[in-house]
């Protein structure tokens, strides 16, 4: 099982501002996923990255996988209240298990 550290734990910003959350480990991942979870709901997959250095964009969200496949970041441009939620990163190894970070709680104030 890989240990994932997410930072910051909490983030509160004003609508229109940018934000970045980080996911780090000392281990190499075969894949990394980002999920968003809203209160009372299960996590919803946002993106999967598998290649070192990979960058994926999903509208205002940009996901980056580190060259060494040990870290990842999620950047949100011009955040909106609808972006509020718990952002979780999850790492896959060569088996079927995902190891989840503790999450970053993002609050976007209108």
């Amino acid at each position: 099982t890989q240990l994932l550290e997410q930072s910051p734990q909490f983030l509160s910003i004003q609508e229109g501002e940018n934000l970045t959350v980080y996911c780090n480990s000392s281990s190499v991942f075969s894949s990394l996923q980002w999920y968003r979870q809203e209160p009372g709901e299960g996590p919803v997959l946002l993106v999967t990255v598998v290649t070192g250095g990979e960058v994926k964009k999903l509208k205002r969200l940009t996901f980056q996988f580190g060259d060494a496949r040990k870290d990842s970041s999620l950047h949100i441009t011009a955040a909106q209240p609808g972006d509020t939620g718990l952002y979780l990163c999850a790492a896959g190894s060569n088996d079927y298990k995902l190891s989840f970070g503790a999450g970053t709680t993002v609050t976007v104030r209108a």
Partner: protein
Amino acid sequence: GAGVSQSPSNKVTEKGKDVELRCDPISGHTALYWYRQSLGQGLEFLIYFQGNSAPDKSGLPSDRFSAERTGGSVSTLTIQRTQQEDSAVYLCASSITSVGAYEQYFGPGTRLTVT
């Protein structure tokens, strides 16, 4: 199509009682996972089913926890003699493949409160 469903959505039980939590995965998904999420924490892996293979129970926290999956579809997580520390949200996820743990789809969870 229908997503992963879980029932009940909320369960309040007294310490010492047994509870059963149900998960209906997405049709055609061969892999099924149970996780536990405590307040402010990430997801803790509990158990994994893949097809007709023996389940991976390595994440179950004690022998009070058990799970089964009937006919390769519906799964039930049973907690016997519940304790207050069992209070958490129990999440089920399914996946079309177990390779690389790709693309897990989660249900809304069951919030368990043990009083």
